[in-house]
């Protein structure tokens, strides 16, 4: 975990977070901002759709693929550690960092954005938590499958999550960000929350919060199991 923390990814994450915090600071200067404004204008479009997957892929996609690229995976595989143990250790280390960055980033964003932002963090941190776990499992699976997992994950995050997560119809249900948005919308109905700004509510069709959470749990479990299965059988 310390190796990952001292990696280039940490600097990239820190830079992105600083930029977003600066943007949030500028946003918070307007007096009439509400929690609903914050969610629609900052939290969903910038944090949930962009930073959350980027923070997650930086560590999770590098966990195994990074060792493959640096040719150090052989040292691990030559020891009596079983493959499930290696996979679990790598996943745990990556997930710990993913959670620290995603929850810490959301907290920092909420704090910077003032009372409206902090209200959102207190209310929506479970959505960040469960989508972080799902992203962590997905990008860790990529890490096991692809040597250039970071590139694959970036393409997935920037294209599929952003694009598919916002298209009309049911196809967006393949994107993790859709379920995160559903959790946020379900948890913020009393704040007057609906689909993000500029999106037709009739086309977004959010799922109930419980259903979205269940889907994220199941997806996380399935992706974790798939990653473990592949890692235990794959020749590197």
């Amino acid at each position, binding site marked *: 975990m310390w190796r990952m923390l001292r990696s280039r990814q940490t600097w990239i994450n820190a830079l992105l977070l600083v930029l977003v915090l600066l943007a949030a600071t500028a946003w918070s200067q307007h007096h009439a901002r509400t929690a609903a404004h914050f969610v629609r204008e900052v939290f969903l479009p910038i944090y949930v759709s962009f930073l959350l997957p980027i923070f997650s892929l930086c560590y999770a996609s590098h966990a195994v693929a990074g060792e493959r690229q640096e040719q150090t995976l052989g*040292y691990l595989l030559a*020891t009596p550690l079983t493959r499930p143990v290696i996979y679990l250790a790598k996943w745990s280390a990556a997930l710990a960092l993913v959670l620290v960055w995603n929850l810490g980033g959301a907290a920092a964003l909420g704090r910077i954005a003032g009372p409206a932002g902090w209200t959102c963090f207190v209310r929506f941190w479970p959505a960040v938590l469960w989508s972080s776990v799902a992203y962590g499992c997905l990008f860790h699976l990529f890490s096991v499958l692809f040597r250039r997992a970071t590139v694959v994950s970036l393409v997935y995050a920037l294209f599929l999550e952003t694009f598919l997560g916002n298209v009309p119809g049911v196809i967006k249900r393949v994107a993790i960000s859709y379920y995160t948005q559903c959790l946020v919308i379900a948890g913020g109905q009393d704040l007057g929350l609906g689909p993000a700004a500029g999106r037709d509510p009739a086309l977004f069709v959010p799922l109930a919060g419980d259903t979205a959470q269940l889907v994220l749990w199941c997806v996380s479990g399935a992706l974790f199991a798939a990653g473990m299965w592949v890692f235990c059988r794959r020749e590197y």
Partner: protein
Amino acid sequence: MTATAHDTTAPLLEFAGVSKWYGPVIAVNDVTVRLEPGITGLVGPNGAGKSTLIRLLTGQLRPSLGEVRVRGRRAWSAAAKSHIGYCADTDAFYEEMSGQAFVRTVARWHGFTGRELAARTAAALEQVGMADRASRPLASYSKGMRQRIKLAQALVHAPELLVLDEPLNGVDPLGREELVHVFTGLAARGTAVLLSSHILDEMDWLADRVLFLYRGRIIAAGSLPEIRQTLADHPLNIRISVDRPRELAARLLMVETVQAVQLAPGGDLLIQVHRPQECYRALAELICAGGFQVERLSATDVSAEAIFDYLMQTARRL
């Protein structure tokens, strides 16, 4: 204390009808061999299957057919790996660590903790002559020092089988001598050492037996003299420095196992013989009977390189 108890009754390493292919390409073809204590050289041209063979026995690959077993356990299994120390040919490390931290990390993966972890780490570094320089970052090491650290991590759990892929690459002559001393010392204490090297000269004096690999098959296995004797198509070349070369040459032509005799420019006799053991006996009798003064007698093509060339010629004809 290692995680797995050693089952010393099963063969240390056994390849049983092992084949490995990647799509239509056969990398290892029906290999059956057992490894014995001592130093075994693994020799073959590029693409012969040496790396695949090593990756099979270190459990990084699974055979497409057959089985690789280490002390009775499948090489792929975690239990088998506690018997093996692997020194890869890649120059890859966790660069931000010191040599000591790297070896300690690998020792921890092998299940050592506390005082034993420290003791094992120190002993392995001492064994490769890096005890006094191990606290420096790996990124600052020379190629030779990195090779030594790689060897230390392979030795840290005192494996029964040490697999070395090009271990002397980049090591200076003095360091080479020291490392060879480590290998021979380990072999003398009962460790089986499998050494893959493209420097065939090393095999002449280092390897107790050699496995010659060509196109995924083991085309010869045994000590160099044993393998040389099997090459009936290639008569053994012997050079003799003697006081009366012409007289000895005339007498040698009468010996059945001598195929040809040639007088070299320096006055030495070059003879080609079949069935070397018989010829050596006849030669000894001739020398004693004729009262010849022999200054030097040596076989000129029993080196690993010469045998390798002969084997390649034979294999290409098949």
